[in-house]
């Protein structure tokens, strides 16, 4: 009788059953083929909602306009109009609840991002009026002489 030869096969079948059982128990029920097919859409559907639920940090200048109309109008009528408030003041998050105040970054590093003059004529950078921070008043903060909300005006500090 040939039957002892098949014994290892029973073990194999047991392993296969174990794997199928593990799949049934462990794999989340919403895991499957998505709209993009098997190659590009094999995933757990619930993850999409998880990504959509991430907290928004930056609220854009329109949000700031609500309470800070004066500063908003100031900057919007200046050469700095396109810079959003949060670029320099950090993300609004749940301001004014949390944080109650946003930081005002007075460092030279911030202004130098655009105003470090680089001689690149083929790029917008070369058209921005800039300085060499090593030689242009390295001891002072930019805002001592310049008003960031409207660089055409005098400093308010």
């Amino acid at each position, binding site marked *: 009788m040939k039957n002892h030869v098949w014994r290892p096969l029973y073990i194999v079948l047991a392993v296969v059953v174990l794997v199928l059982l593990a799949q049934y128990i462990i794999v989340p029920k919403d895991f499957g083929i998505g709209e993009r097919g098997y190659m*590009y859409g*094999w995933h757990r559907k619930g993850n999409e909602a998880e990504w*959509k639920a991430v*907290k928004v*940090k930056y609220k*854009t200048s329109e949000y700031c306009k609500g309470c800070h109309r004066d500063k908003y109008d100031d900057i919007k009528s200046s050469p700095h109009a396109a810079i959003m408030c949060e670029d320099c003041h950090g993300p609004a998050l749940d301001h004014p609840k949390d944080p109650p105040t946003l930081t005002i970054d007075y460092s030279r590093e911030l202004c130098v991002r655009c105003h*470090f003059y680089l*001689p690149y004529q083929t790029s*917008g*950078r070369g058209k921005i009026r800039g300085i060499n921070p090593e030689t242009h008043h390295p001891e002072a903060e930019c805002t001592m002489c310049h008003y960031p909300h409207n660089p055409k005006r005098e400093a308010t500090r």
Partner: protein
Amino acid sequence: MINRRDFCKKTMIMVGGLALPLAAFELFDPKTLRAEKTDTEKVRWVFLVDTHKCVGCGMCVKACKIENETPYDANVTRTWVERYVITRDGKVHIDSPKGARDGFKTGKIDIGGGKFEDIKPEEIDKAFFVPKLCNQCDNPPCVQVCPVGATYQTADGVVLVDREWCIGCGYCIMGCPYGVRFFHPVYRVAEKCNFCYHRITKGMKTACVDACPFDARRVGNIKDPADPVTKIIMTERVNILKEEYGTKPQVFYLGLTKEVK
């Protein structure tokens, strides 16, 4: 009974005649490209970068890090800006210090190992900045190689990573020709730009688009013919990165030159 010469002549004419209208369908046309998408999705996110306008201020990188909670001091970033300086001798100098998180604070090129290369202004032929981010390809090679289905593409074209399912093998990182993927230092799974999916699905723009003061970055929906981004892609001379890989990237560049890697 038709003779051989006539038969050949007539066949040639017939084939030639047929080839003409058939050939008309083969010409690449952006409208065909849009129509080719047989799915009925109303949204397909695309991005537009204008390298003429980018000044390398790095506000986009800073905003992205904060919005998407990528550890600020870690040397990885979902988006970055590259600086290209082409000098008179034809050499191309490229750098991206900390991904341009702090902008470009020196005219010297960062060549790694703490070394810098001095460039004389009079030697510069052309110089420009190129922002980079995930291309959310139509044929994403990173999704193809994920062994467990932890990364995938949504119906509206954004490629996402399931942080709960990723095993951290790194195959997707090796599979991306653009180098946009990395291991998240805290979550220890694969990570990359996802077009601020939590913002665009709420009608907002991505953090980098909002942060850019120079209009160098724009996000839009290619399925909406009234979208200004769509109009530019359809009518102006746009280019894509590494077309030869067949990934069909959906980030379009204005002013992309041969030097850009």
